[in-house]
Structure formats: structure tokens, C-alpha cells
């Protein structure tokens, strides 16, 4: 049984983008804040903080989830992947990122990290989704500047559809 008192700052270890890292967190620290403030991984963006906008979506053990609806203490020992995991070490974009670039699927880019992580999970499970399926998954995200047409086109491109 793991027990952490409210004022205790416990050492929390995770594997972040392939590296074992640890930092201190009190129980109420959200995973998104842990990533940004404790581990310095600021690629994950924090929007609504109640699970509606999807900006903070990351992969927890390969599965897309809202990091604002998860406490850091809950993911102790888990594998976390954020948007920083996608590009190659030399900065070369991965196919999903490249498709976003090609299709003007981002403008300000605030919502983009979450959308990229959602589709990293979804396309791994369903590499040839229909447009309706893409739209349904995208329904879990809010984008307030680009709109959604370019994002759908980008996913269709990376899924090998015209």
C-alpha cells in the first residue's frame, strides 16, 4: 500500500519519453503540472484544467489521457510520452507532425501537442480510420484558431488516404 500525506512531497519516478526521471510531488499535483514544472517538459499545454479542451493529452502506458485529470502520484512507475517524444533527436518531424505541417493543421499551436498525442494512440490502434472516426476522436479536442478541416486532412494524409 502506498500512502502519501497531504503536505508530504513524495519522490515520484516515471519513464518520460524513454528516460527514467524523478521529482517531488504532493498528492494534489496534477500530472500536467508535474511534467511542466517538476520535470521541465513544457511541450504539454494546459488549457481548461477540467478535461474538456484536450490540450494536455499525453500517453500513459501508450494510452491517450488528459494529464489535467490525473495526479502525478497515480502514474508512479508508469511510462509517459509527451509531444517531445515525436520528433527525431535532430529535430526532424515524424510523419504525423509533417502531415500537420503540410496541411496547415495548426496556427497558434496551443492545442496541437494534445491532438498529436491523441492520434499517436488512435492511429496505432486503427491505422486506416474513416473520416467519421477521425472526427470522433478529434471531438475530444478544442482548437480555437485553425479550425478542424486542416487537422482532419492531416490525419487522412498520414493514414494514407486522399
Amino acid at each position, binding site marked *: 500500500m502506498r500512502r*502519501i500525506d497531504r503536505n508530504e512531497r513524495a519522490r515520484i519516478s516515471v519513464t518520460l519519453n524513454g528516460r527514467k526521471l524523478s521529482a517531488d510531488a504532493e498528492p494534489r499535483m496534477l500530472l500536467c503540472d508535474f511534467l511542466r514544472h517538476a520535470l521541465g517538459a513544457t511541450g504539454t499545454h494546459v488549457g481548461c*484544467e*477540467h478535461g474538456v479542451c484536450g490540450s494536455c493529452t499525453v500517453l500513459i502506458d501508450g494510452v*491517450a489521457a*488528459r494529464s*489535467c485529470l*490525473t495526479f502525478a*502520484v497515480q502514474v508512479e512507475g508508469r511510462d509517459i510520452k509527451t509531444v517531445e517524444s515525436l520528433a527525431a533527436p535532430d529535430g526532424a518531424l515524424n510523419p504525423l507532425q509533417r502531415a500537420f505541417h503540410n496541411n496547415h493543421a495548426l496556427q497558434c499551436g496551443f492545442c496541437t501537442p494534445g491532438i498529436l498525442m491523441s492520434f499517436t494512440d488512435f492511429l496505432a490502434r486503427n491505422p486506416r480510420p474513416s473520416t467519421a472516426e477521425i472526427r470522433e476522436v478529434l*471531438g475530444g479536442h478544442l482548437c480555437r484558431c485553425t479550425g478542424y478541416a486542416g487537422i482532419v486532412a492531416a490525419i487522412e494524409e498520414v493514414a494514407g488516404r486522399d
Partner: protein
Amino acid sequence: MKPRPFDYIRPDTVEEAVALLADYGEDARVLAGGQSLVPMLNLRLIEARVLIDISRIATLDVIRERDGRIEIGAAVTQNTLMAWPQLATKLPLVAAALPFVGHFQTRNRGTVCGSMAHADPSSELPLALAVAGGEIVLRSRRGERVLAAGDFQKDMLTTARAGDELIVAARFPVANGAGIAFREVARRHGDFAIIAVAALAEDKNTVRLGVGGMAGRPMVRRLGAKDAADAVAAWAEDLEGYEDLHASAAMRRDLFRNLAPLAIEEALRCAA
């Protein structure tokens, strides 16, 4: 938008979880997927002195068939159930309801039993449980009790769970090949339903119809195929509905009057 401080405890077994609930009672909240609980904590709509995280209790992460019922453990996520190969055959109503439950991203962590525990009046899974005639299994140091859906969910965000009880599973009767339908109206797919309607055909002439979003909890009635439209219209007048930012009570009643006959017809068609 950060929760107030709380103690965090992650038990390894159901026995440990139940012992913790016996100690803390109403001061504790059970955390599984957190997709309803954590927003409420973040917005400080609720406060918990202790969070008991049951998500890693392996014996709760199980879907099994027993005595003609499918038992879904309290750590099973909505997407795990959705990917269960036998879902469409054995629990067709649940299969139809699940795509409406939140979004892909929240279903990845949100649990089936968590939806039951949260008891939102427009929530899809409690509605499916009520229409299917399912049950909730509760455990405490005092023993185990099994409540029918209608006895479990009392009102808006209110259930019959006592402070020292843990929901260990939800049970749905196996409904091989049953005629079913599930429809809802929401502003955006995956958002809270304004109203949701579920129908299950008992035979070619009778449906059990349930509606969410019209009262503090899912309401269920048995209707005959012949006079279904009249029965729905009368029922719509009985239901008070409620007003919020998204819809007036009158609009909810109107949606119900229009949606219910479609669901009844679809369920009977599948049954035939």
C-alpha cells in the same frame, strides 16, 4: 483550478480498500479513472480529505461471465469494455451506449463503475444499467450487498452507497441478440447528453424504455408496441425535466417525445 490538499492512499487489494473506507467513511473519495471526480476536485465543487486509488487493484480489473450476467470490475475502463470481443453479442445495449460516453481520450481512463458511482442524471452507462435490469455490487467490512440499478441510483449525483462501501462491480444480464436502440442529443458528440434514450425489446410487442436527462436519475417504463407514441407523450408530461444552460425543461420534453418513438421502433425492428 487546483484541488484542495488531500491524503493519497493506493491500496493493493480490495480488503485493504474496504478497511480504509471503514476508517475514513465519508471523508474519503474512491479514485479509479478520475474522469468525473478530478474535474470536480479541480473546480472545488467537492472536497476530499482522502483519496483512495483503486485503479491498480488487479482483481477489480476483470470482465467475467457468471450465472448469466456479465460482471465488470471497478477498475475496468470504458475503452477496455468497448474493446471486449464479446460485447456486441452479449451486451448489445452497452455496446450501443459506450461510444456516447465522453471522448476516446476520457474513456481510456474513465471506468464503467465510476460512471455508476458519479450518477450524473444524463449519463449513458447508468441508463443502460437501469434499462438492462443490471445490478451494482457493494462491499464493506459488514459484507457484500447487491442492489438493483433502480435501488442504487437515488437522485442527481446521489446513490445508495454507504460511506464505508466500495463498488466492486457492475453486473449486466446477458442479452444475446436482443433488439436494442440507443439515441442521444448533445451539443457536441461526447459532451453531456441533453437527453439520452435507451430501448430494449423484451419481445416483439414490448419494450423497456429508459430516459436520461429528464429527472434526477434514469427513468424506465415498460411500453407496448401499439400505443407507444401515446404512452411516450403521456410520460413526457409526467417527467418534470430540468433546466440548465443547454436546454429548458420544455425542450427536453420535446426532444424526448421525438426521440423515444425512433428508439422504440429501432429496438422492435432489431428484435423481429
